[in-house]
């Protein structure tokens, strides 16, 4: 459930454009599973909180008493914009974390990097010296 909610929020932040692919065209489910498995517990907790916060607050941004996932894409995007530029710091911060974690996938995608004149990243080996 949380992955589904997170996916909905992340797609709102990084949609497809003429220049770039959208995050929904990237291996988002695999990324979320990996992030849950690999991230620090505090980081994951912040991400979950940010996701829930995103979905529970449209009433205060676009004045519609529905969770964000039930909004149209355009309204959900307006909600995301208002949250990320909200005057209250502790509203902006959880959304910043959500946007950052989504951005780690979107900005590192080979297609995005290619359009920015950058070679694809080699795989992160995740290895370490054992002896």
């Amino acid at each position, binding site marked *: 459930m949380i992955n589904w909610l997170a996916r909905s929020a992340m797609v*709102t*932040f*990084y*949609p497809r*454009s003429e*220049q*770039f692919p959208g995050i929904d065209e990237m291996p988002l489910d695999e990324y979320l599973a990996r992030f849950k498995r*690999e*991230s*620090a517990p*505090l*980081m994951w907790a*912040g991400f979950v909180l940010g996701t829930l916060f995103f979905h529970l607050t449209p009433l205060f941004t676009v004045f519609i008493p529905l969770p964000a996932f039930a909004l149209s894409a355009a309204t959900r*995007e307006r909600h*995301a*914009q208002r*949250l*990320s*530029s909200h005057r209250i*710091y502790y509203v*902006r*911060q959880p959304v*910043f974390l959500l*946007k*950052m974690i989504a*951005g*780690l*996938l*979107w*900005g*590192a995608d080979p297609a*995005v*990097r290619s359009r*920015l*004149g*950058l070679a694809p*990243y*080699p*795989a*992160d*080996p*995740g*290895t*370490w*010296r*054992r*002896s």
Partner: protein
Amino acid sequence: MTHIAFREEDLSLEVDYVVVGSGAGGATAANELARGGATVALIEAGPWRDPEDYPSSTYGAMRDVFDDWGVGIARGRALWPIVQASCVGGTTVINCAICVRTPEDVMLQWERDLGVGNKAWRDALWKHQDKLEVELCAEVVPPAAAGRSSLLAAKGAEAVRYDGHPMTRYVKGCVGSGQCLQGCKQLKKQSLNLQFVPEVMALGGTVLSCAPAERVLLEGRRAVGVSGRFREPVTRRKGGRYTVRARKAVVVAASVTRTAPLLMASGVKHPLLGRGFRAHPGTGVFGVYDHDVDMNVGATQGWASVQYRIEPGMKVETLSIPPEMVASRLAGAGKELVARMGDYRRMAMWVVAVRAEAVGRIKRGLLGEVSVDYSFARPDMERLRKGLALLARTHFAAGAVRVLPGIYGLPYEIGPDQVDLIENGPLDPRSYILISSHLFGGATMDKDPTRGVCDEYGRVHGYEGLVVADASVIPTTLGVNPQHTIMALARSFADRLLDA
């Protein structure tokens, strides 16, 4: 040569010196002690990653080399991430290896106000820095590797009429791969996992990695060793316990955010332990040009100015960050954000690091968690605004068509006639996205045991055989990058131990 990584079995060792932490301070101290003929055990909480293990992406860097995914924050009026590494070599693996000598005015202040050092002490420190520059191949960034962002900064500073210079870094033959923050796979950066740590092993020392220290072992007021437990770096599963006894001394260099809490957990008593936390928090301003800058091509950091180090108290420099970091740094969401990312190739990011007056505190919670209380004072916010305005002016002088201030409450982008918006910008730290870097304090030096935790050789007042050898001892900000100072202090402290 002995390296012991994560293991399930318990381990006991006895050596002359135990050094906790393998970053700039710990690796340098261990290396000097080993060169002096002592047997040394170097204990590192994180794993040992060789260049072939280095990550490429920011995700990989956060997972593999940042300390606990970079979730450490300085908490005050705003939340500012603390960026440091947890791996053999410490933050030298992921920093830009910037080499700046300890300013004389800073050391004169230490002598005058704290009774720390004298002319001979200062001269010894600088001699260490002479040698370190040779050993670690300190070089000025070559023009071919500087990258357009640094070349533009030089041009802009000249037009605005302040001094700047290509950086000197511990990088031999930089090829400008733009990967300093993930670890240099080109083997050009002389990070200490490649330099001093292997030498410690070659000289008969033992390196324990994946081995967070839990306690400095005390017998009365004498430090006699270190104990801890191995931790698997991927799963965080706990392994065997280890105890390393020290015949002569324990040197703690676990980083500013870890050293004081480790001493607290060990029962070291001093009312100032954890106090005196200082930093050079910083943030960046993007300039958008009418041509490609490709800031990710070239040295990650290549140009700096220290003209304003003393007054008003700040350093400006170039810093290139990859698209995934820019994506979260730019304001907005959705189509608007993605459209803004279309400017990436034409962007250059330059940063101001504030030599802050603010003083904070490092605390250890009931469950052992570490927290840092730290908040900017008004003069620091004024410095920050001045620095950001200077950078905006420099961008425009270098030919930027727009500047993205990145300040909440200001327009997303401004033109050359709107720099005063930054100068008169908000004074609330919450309006800025800052990162806490260049950390100092927590176990500061002072001749007077009632005013500082350590003496001028890092020896903890009131204890025997217990030395702190990282930036925790530094009692003030420096206004310059601290690695060179940390290494020189560590080497000086190690020499004193060998002489004793």
